[in-house]
C-alpha cells in the first residue's frame, strides 16, 4: 500500500511539469543567496583604494574576502574580467516604496495628517513589492532612506535594502526622526503669500517647535525618573532623539533657515544631520564649523533663486565638501531613484570630483546614518551589497551586469525590462492588421 502510494506520487511528480506547462509558461527568477566569487575585476573598495585583477568572495550575506588570489572552492564563479565592482549605492533620501503612483492619492502613503507625528514609521508604509523597487536596484542603488513627508515632525525615516518580502527583511539598521525646519522660502510659483505672511508663519512655526521640544525634554526627564506617564506616542518618539537613541534628520534648504537651524540645534545635545540643504553653498563655512553632516539633493535641480547661476545646484555638493562638510547625495525621488548615479556624476563634474562623489553615495551616507560598520564600502565582514558594471556606473552608457544585495544575487529584470522584451519586436506586428 505504501509502495503504491509512493509510485503514485512519483508518477504525479513526473507529470507535474506537463500540468504546469499547461497553465504557466516560463520561469520566474528570484533573488538567491549562496557562495559567489566575483572574479578578476577592478574593485573600487572606496575605503581601501582600487584593486586591479581582484576578486570578491561572498557568502551568507557577507563579503568574506577581497583580494587577488581567492580560492573558488565551492563557490559559484562569476567572471568579471574587464569589469568594475563598486559597493551598492545608498540614496540618503527618497520616498521609494511609500508611493506607487504619484497622482493617485490612494497609493500615496508618505504623508500623514497632522503637524507633529514623529511616531509615524516609514518602515510600516514601505511596500516591499512596489513596482519601483526592482526598477531601482538594477541601476546599482541597493539601499535607500525612505523618508516621511509633511508637517514639522512628519515621522521616522528608515534605511532599507532593496531586497526582501517584509519590511523587517529589508531594514538596513538605521532610522532617524525627521524634522522639517520652518521654511522661510516660497513653496512654489502658486505660493502667493506676501513676504510679511511668510515671515510671520515662519516665526510661529519656530516658536511652536521650541515649545514642543521643551515638552519632549520634560517628558524624557520624567520618564527617566520613573514617572508614570500617560500614553503619548509622539513624545515617546521625540524622547528617543533627546536620549540619543535616534538621530534627528533636519530638512532645511534656504540659507537663512540653515543658519537658524544651526543656532537652534546648538544647545541641544542630540545626534543631528541636515537633509536637502539646497542653499548650503551660501553658508558652507558655517555648516562645516558646526560639524553637521548633510545629505543633499537632488543635484539635477533648478536654482532656488532667479538670480542664481544656472549651475548652483550642480556645484552645491562640491562647495560644501570643499568647506569641510561631510556630504552624502540623495535624489529625493520615488520612481526615479535609479538616477542617483547621474546626480552624483553631475556633482562630480561641477566640483566635487569623482572620488568624493562616489563616497557621497556610499561610505559618507553610511557614516552619516551610523551603519558604516555594515555598508558603504567593499571590506571583509561587511554586508554583501555590490554591483558589477561594464564601466563607471555613473555613465549612462555603462551596463550594470550583476547586483548583490545582502548577499542575494538580484535578477536583472523589472517591468521596464519585461516590456522591452515583449514589445521590441511585436507579434502580431503591423502587417497582421
Amino acid at each position, binding site marked *: 500500500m505504501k509502495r503504491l502510494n509512493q509510485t503514485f506520487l512519483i508518477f504525479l511528480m513526473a507529470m507535474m511539469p506537463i500540468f504546469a506547462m499547461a497553465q504557466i509558461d516560463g520561469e520566474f527568477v528570484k533573488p538567491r543567496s549562496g557562495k559567489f566569487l566575483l572574479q578578476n575585476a577592478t574593485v573600487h573598495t572606496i575605503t581601501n583604494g582600487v584593486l586591479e585583477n581582484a576578486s570578491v568572495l561572498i557568502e551568507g550575506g557577507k563579503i568574506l574576502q577581497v583580494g587577488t588570489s581567492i580560492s573558488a572552492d565551492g563557490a559559484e564563479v562569476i567572471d568579471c574580467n574587464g569589469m568594475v565592482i563598486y559597493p551598492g549605492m545608498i540614496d540618503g533620501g527618497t520616498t521609494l516604496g511609500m508611493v506607487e503612483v504619484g*497622482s493617485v492619492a490612494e497609493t500615496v502613503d508618505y504623508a500623514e495628517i497632522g503637524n507633529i507625528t514623529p511616531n509615524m514609521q516609514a518602515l510600516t508604509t514601505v511596500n516591499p513589492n512596489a513596482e519601483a523597487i526592482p526598477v531601482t536596484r538594477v541601476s546599482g542603488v541597493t539601499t535607500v532612506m525612505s523618508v516621511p513627508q509633511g508637517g514639522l515632525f512628519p515621522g521616522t525615516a528608515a534605511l532599507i535594502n532593496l531586497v526582501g518580502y517584509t519590511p523587517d527583511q529589508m531594514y538596513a539598521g538605521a532610522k532617524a526622526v525627521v524634522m522639517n525646519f520652518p521654511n522661510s522660502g516660497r513653496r512654489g510659483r502658486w505660493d502667493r503669500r506676501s513676504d510679511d505672511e511668510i515671515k510671520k508663519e515662519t516665526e510661529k512655526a519656530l516658536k511652536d517647535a521650541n515649545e514642543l521640544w521643551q515638552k519632549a525634554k520634560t517628558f524624557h526627564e520624567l520618564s527617566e525618573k520613573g514617572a508614570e506617564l500617560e500614553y503619548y506616542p509622539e513624545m515617546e518618539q521625540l524622547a528617543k532623539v533627546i536620549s540619543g537613541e535616534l538621530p534627528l534628520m533636519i530638512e532645511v534648504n534656504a540659507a537663512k533657515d540653515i543658519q537658524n537651524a544651526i543656532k537652534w540645534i546648538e544647545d541641544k545635545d542630540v545626534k543631528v544631520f541636515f537633509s536637502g540643504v539646497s542653499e548650503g553653498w551660501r553658508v558652507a563655512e558655517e555648516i562645516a564649523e558646526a560639524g553637521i553632516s548633510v545629505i543633499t539633493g537632488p543635484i539635477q535641480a533648478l536654482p*532656488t533663486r532667479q538670480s542664481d547661476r*544656472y549651475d548652483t545646484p550642480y556645484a552645491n555638493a562640491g562647495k560644501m565638501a570643499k568647506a569641510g562638510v561631510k556630504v552624502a547625495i540623495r535624489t529625493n525621488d520615488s520612481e526615479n531613484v535609479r*538616477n542617483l548615479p547621474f546626480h552624483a556624476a553631475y556633482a562630480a563634474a561641477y566640483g566635487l570630483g569623482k572620488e568624493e562623489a562616489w563616497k557621497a553615495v556610499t561610505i559618507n551616507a553610511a557614516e552619516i546614518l551610523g551603519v558604516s560598520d555594515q555598508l558603504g564600502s567593499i571590506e571583509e565582514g561587511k554586508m554583501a551589497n555590490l554591483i558589477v558594471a561594464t564601466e563607471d556606473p555613473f555613465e549612462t552608457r555603462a551596463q550594470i551586469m550583476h547586483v548583490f544585495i545582502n548577499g542575494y544575487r538580484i535578477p536583472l529584470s523589472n517591468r*521596464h525590462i519585461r516590456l522591452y522584451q515583449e514589445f*521590441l519586436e511585436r507579434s502580431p506586428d503591423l502587417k497582421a492588421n
Partner: protein
Amino acid sequence: MNKLNYFLTALLGLSMQFAFAQTPKGSVLIKNATVLTVTNGTLENTDVLVEDGVIKRIAQDISAPNGVETIDATGKYVMPGIIDAHSHVALDVVNEATNPIVAEVRMKDVVNPYEIGIYRALAGGVTISHAMHGSANVIGGQNATLKHRWGSTDPADIIMQDAPRTIKFALGENPTRVHGRGNGIQPRSRMGVEAILRNGFSEALQYKKAWETYESSKDERGSTAVAPKYNERLQTLVDILDGKIIIHCHSYRADEIYMLINVARDFGITKLVFQHTNEGFKVAPEIAEYTMGASVFADWWAYKFEVYYSTAFNAAILQKNGALTSINSDSAELIRHLYHEAGKTQRYGGLTDDEALAMITINPAKQLGIDDKVGSLEEGKHADIAIFEGHPLSTYAVPQMTFVDGVKYFDIKEDPDDQRQRISATETVEPIYLGHEDHRCMQDTEHLFETANALFNTEK
C-alpha cells in the same frame, strides 16, 4: 505742421520696427574640434566656419577671414544646438482651458523674452524650444517655435518666424479631467475625446465647403451669395486638414494613440507627432507607418496612472521599429541637460552615439518642420552650435559655449552670477522656490481642482 509731425513719427516708428526685425547674426571660426555633425558622422580635428549666422564650411585647416573671431576648441566637442520639442519655457500663460477646442489661441501672443529659463536652457546647449500650449484641451492652442536669442526684449525676436505652424492636441486624463470632471461637459472619457475630434473636423469640413461654395458663386452674375461668418477656430482646423499645421499631441496610452492615428487617417491628416507617448512602444509599428513619430521622456514614469505601465526603453523600441523619435523635457529643469537624457537611450536599449544625439537635434527638427534649417552641422544651415568639454553623451560633460545664428549667448567663462534682465520692483524678498514646480502642462487649470498643490507637483 501737426500732420507732418504725426507722419514723421509714424515713419520713424516703422523704420525702427524694420531695423529691429533683423535678428542678430554672427561670424566665428571654431578650430580643431571633434565635430559631431549628427548627419555626417564625427569629424576629428575639424574647423567650423560661420559667416553671417550661417555655417559656411566644415573642413580642416580653415583660416579665419578678416575680422572673424577664432575659438580654439582643441579637445572639445562641437555639436548642433540642441532642440527641445516640448517646452513651456518663456511663456506667461500655458492653458486656455475654457473649451475642449481652442485652436484659435496662439502662444506667440504670450512669449516672455525675460524668462531666465531661456538662459538656463542655453547653458545646457539648447538653442531652440517648442513653446507649447498646455494639455487641458483635446485641441489646444497653436505653439511657438523659439530661438533662444537671450537679451532680446521684443518677443518677436525670440520667435523663429520661418518655422511652420504647429498645434497642441491632448488625449486622456488631462482633457477628460478638466472638461468632464471639472466642468461637466464632454469629454469625460476617451470615447468623448474621439467624438470631440471627429465632430470638430467634420464641422471644419462643412465650414470649408461653405466658403468654397461662396467663393465659387460670389462672382456669378446676379449672385446673392453671402460670405459665411469668419471663424478663426474652424479656420485653424481647416488649416490642419489642409496640411498647413503640424499636430503635436499630448498622449500616454497606446489605445488613445491608436485612436488618433485612425482619426487622422480618416481625415487624411499626415502631419502628426505624438508627445510624451509613454506607451508608444506598444504601437511603435503604427507610429512608424502613419505619423511623424514620437517625442518622449527618457525615463519619466509612475507620476500618474497613465504612465504606470511605462518603460525607459520606450525611445529605443520606437527607434528600432523605425519611428522618428526625439527626447524632450517639458520641464524648465530637464531642458538644461537634454544631452544627458539622450545618453539614457544607451543605458536603456544600447543606441549608438549618432542615434542618441539625433534624438535631441535632427529628429526634433524634423518633427517641427525645420530640419532644412537646423538640427545638424551642415554647410548652409543656421549656425546654432553647442561646444562641450567632454563628449555630450557622457554624464561628466560640461557645456562651454552656445551659439544661435553664429552669435554667442552662453560662455561658461563669462557667465556672471546674476543673469536676469529685469528685476521686480515690487518684490522685496526674491522668491526662493524650494519645491519641484517645473511641470507646467496643466498650469492655469489648478482652480478647477481641490488638489491644486498635489497637481502641481505631479502633473505633466
